[in-house]
């Protein structure tokens, strides 16, 4: 008798261990999670993400951030800084981990229920013990674990895609901040030049060779330059602060942040459309996310066809009866199976819902596939156009303006034109330089957007055309 009980106990133990082992397969650790996200986004961010949990880790990261802040922060460094420093990004990672953990939960079976009952009837004492667990849970375990894995995948892909989004924002904010700073510095230069001319006009008036009208006209440029400088100053602050927020810098760090004086030079060559196409087909996040979603719902549907009908519960029961009067004890052992009869609800609605979900997922995948190509083409076009325009400014427009200004200076030297004609020309120079800076900004924004689109987080930038309006021949006799 006792032996039989032991055997039963042994079996129970085994199956519990087996269950634990089985369910363990669908678990997810933070390290795995981070490794996966880093695999996905590594080439994109060019750095590693990590969720800091201990003080030591936090100090280490603060140190890295401090090191990065020592030199002017380039675009690449800005991304690194965001990776190690941004609390928002850390929050994102933590949330992602939570999501994955929730998803893993699906792959586990409900814990067995142990029930104990004690009944006294007269002199009889009956102790009932029952260990029951869902048989259906157990039978469908493999497929549920599959679902869990897919959901973990899905949450990891979603996380990766959010990271990409964040990093793209960092990149673009960096571009804007550097541009605004560059524009601000340039506005200061313009002001100095305008100041010189206003000063000259003032001196001319004071010796009597200029009247009030002519002087006022020259002064107007100066006044205009001052307005521009003020606006540019605010723009520089605003875009810098946006970057500060995205990098998650604290007060001290924000003060330490230095940016390069100007945007990097344009790449020697733009990415070719072929290269972009082949890059894009390899593992786009959005497509894989849609695929994972479809697979999850397809698998869930398979499981659902079964579970929607019925539920089966297996119970091992052992009842021991003590008869105090006779002093005997008898033990009854047995199994119990509960089957929920699909009498009223055949689970049709549940299956319909699942069907619909799968159908939706299928179509979402299809939509994603179709959108992916189109948005990539648009991104590429924005990138390529911005590149061509910026290059055109660099190789054609600015040098032309330079030639004009040099030739004007020669004419000024020869007293063929006056100093105020130089000034009129300098206004054209200002708008050309502004347009050139703007064109470079557009390129770098489009570049960041294209990178995000390539990895599967379609981001499009609107190209704004800010052509300089040079005055034609005008001054020059």
């Amino acid at each position: 008798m006792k032996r039989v009980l032991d055997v039963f106990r042994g079996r129970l133990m085994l199956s519990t261990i087996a269950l634990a082992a089985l369910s363990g397969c669908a678990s997810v650790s933070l390290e795995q999670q981070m490794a996966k996200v880093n695999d996905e986004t590594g080439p994109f961010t060019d750095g590693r993400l990590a969720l800091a949990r201990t003080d030591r880790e936090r100090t280490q990261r603060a140190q890295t951030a401090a090191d990065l802040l020592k030199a002017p922060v380039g675009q690449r460094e800005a991304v690194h800084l965001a990776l190690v420093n941004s609390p928002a990004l850390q929050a994102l990672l933590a949330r992602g981990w939570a999501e994955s953990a929730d998803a893993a939960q699906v792959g586990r079976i409900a814990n067995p229920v142990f029930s104990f009952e004690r009944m006294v009837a007269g002199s009889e004492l009956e102790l009932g013990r029952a260990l029951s667990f869902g048989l259906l849970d157990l039978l469908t375990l493999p497929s549920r674990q599959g679902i869990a894995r897919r959901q973990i995948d899905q949450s990891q892909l979603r996380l990766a895609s959010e990271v990409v989004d964040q990093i793209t924002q960092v990149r673009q904010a960096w571009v804007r901040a550097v541009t605004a700073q560059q524009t601000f510095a340039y506005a200061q230069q313009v002001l100095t030049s305008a100041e010189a001319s206003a000063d000259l006009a003032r001196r001319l008036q004071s010796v009597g060779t200029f009247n009030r009208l002519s002087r006022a006209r020259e002064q107007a440029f100066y006044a205009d330059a001052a307005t521009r400088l003020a606006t540019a100053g605010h723009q520089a602050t605003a875009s810098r602060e946006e970057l500060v927020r995205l990098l998650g810098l604290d007060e001290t760090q924000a003060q330490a942040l230095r940016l390069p004086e100007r945007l990097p030079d344009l790449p020697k060559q733009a990415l070719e459309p072929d290269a972009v196409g082949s890059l894009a087909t390899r593992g786009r996040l959005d497509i894989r996310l849609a695929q994972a979603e479809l697979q999850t719902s397809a698998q869930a549907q398979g499981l659902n066809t079964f579970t929607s009908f019925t539920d089966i519960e297996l119970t091992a029961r052992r009842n021991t009866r003590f008869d105090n009067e006779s002093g005997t004890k008898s033990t009854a052992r047995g199994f119990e199976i509960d089957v929920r009869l699909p009498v009223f609800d055949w689970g049709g609605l549940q299956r319909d819902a699942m069907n619909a979900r799968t159908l939706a997922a299928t179509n979402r995948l299809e939509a994603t596939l179709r959108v992916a190509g189109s948005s990539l083409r648009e991104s590429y076009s924005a990138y390529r156009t911005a590149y061509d325009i910026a290059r055109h400014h660099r190789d054609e427009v600015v040098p032309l303006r330079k030639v004009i200004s040099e030739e004007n200076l020669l004419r000024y030297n020869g007293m063929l034109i006056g100093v105020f004609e130089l000034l009129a020309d300098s206004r054209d120079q200002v708008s050309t330089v502004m347009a050139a800076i703007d064109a470079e900004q557009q390129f770098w924004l489009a570049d960041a957007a294209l990178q995000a689109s390539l990895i599967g987080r379609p981001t499009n930038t609107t190209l704004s055309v800010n052509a300089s309006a040079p005055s034609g021949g005008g001054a020059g006799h």
Partner: protein
Amino acid sequence: MTSRRDFFRYAGVTGGAVAISAVSRVAMAALPEPVIQTRPDTMPPLVPDSGTPYNPVVTLNGWTLPWRMNQGVKEFHLVAEPVVREMAPGFKAHLWGYNGQSPGPTIEVVEGDRVRVFVTNKLPEHTSIHWHGQRLPSGMDGVSGLTQPSIQPGKTFVYEFVARRPGTFMYHPHADEMTQMAMGMMGFWVTHPKARHPLIDEVQRDFCFLLNAYDIDPGSYTPKTMTMTDFNLWSWNSRIFPGIDTLNVRLNDKVRIRIGNLTMTNHPIHVHGHEFTVTGTDGGPTPKASRWPEVTADIAVGQMRQIDFVADEEGDWAFHCHKSHHTMNAMGHNVPMLIGVDHSGVARKINKLIPEYMVMGERGMADMTEMEMPIPDNTAPMMTGEGPFGSVEMGGMFSVLKVRRDQKPGDYKDPGWFKHPEGTVAHEYTGPLAEPARFKAEGGQSMPRVQSPAKVTEVQVRKPASHSGH
């Protein structure tokens, strides 16, 4: 054929003249071979070796066209063609002219000569030649459409007439005149008297030149032919100071200068140190009773004035158009008056608005040095010319009459700067300087204004300390 031999002989006389070779010799068999001048210098006078002898003229920065005698007819060959004329050292203009230069060569004949002029058109458009001031058959007057068909590109026309009256004349196109004269097509014609003439004195030096004007944008080469009034280059024989040769004479020489005006405005031509009389116009010698001494003769548009004087004052005498902006080269008319205002470096500050990193290696920094004050390519400085005492600060219609005791007769070479006798040069006064007394009462007004100005404006005149940079 004597032309080949003539050519070599004339080549010796006229300096850099060469025969044209582009036209086939067979085709040219009936024509005198055209002589082409390659240098813009003043050539020595062409002493006639055939026909009636005369005292030849010297064309300022120009030359006289050699001819050939053909059965008693003087034959000339003018080739109308695009030329590159050096207007001043370092400044060349793409003009149209005759036989390699603009203006064309001077044609010298003697009263009563039968003259035959072949005109070959190598221009991209039709042309004709009008013999300004000559008595000739109407059909030889050269007005295309009116008296003859125009000479089409590649064609050669012949003009033939007798030089009936002595005098100074001009020649120029009378087909698309505005363009062709703005491009520099013109030349001088002198008909010497065949015998002593009561109204034409014998002279030792006889100079001639044409007044012309161009509008060439600084840094470019070709005149803007549509310009009506705003010319920027005022030239003598398509040369501008300091590219105009000096008029070098011997002390007590009787000097004649013939000046024709083919610009679109008048030019008061002024000689320093001497008085002259206008002894002739394109209408011929003036009656003696009409002559009076002058130092400036205004030459109106389309006119010629012949002035005579005795060069009896030694020295270097300025000789120029008295419109002061005509003694300037290309200049801006909207340049503000900057005298008395320190504007050093302002231009650079104003103009330097393109950051260095944006354009690299476009131009070297060498030509941007402050000291050199570079000006556009192919542009004559607005005013320049280094004299023995510093910059002359002139341009355009300006030259120097050099009267020298030791200048040999018939020698036209530049004798260099005048050696002033001791104590005859203005110099700085180094003695004590007393402040001149000024009167508040000086100046005033005849009656007060109804509205008085808000503020009394004081006009200050300051002389520039140093303004030699431009």
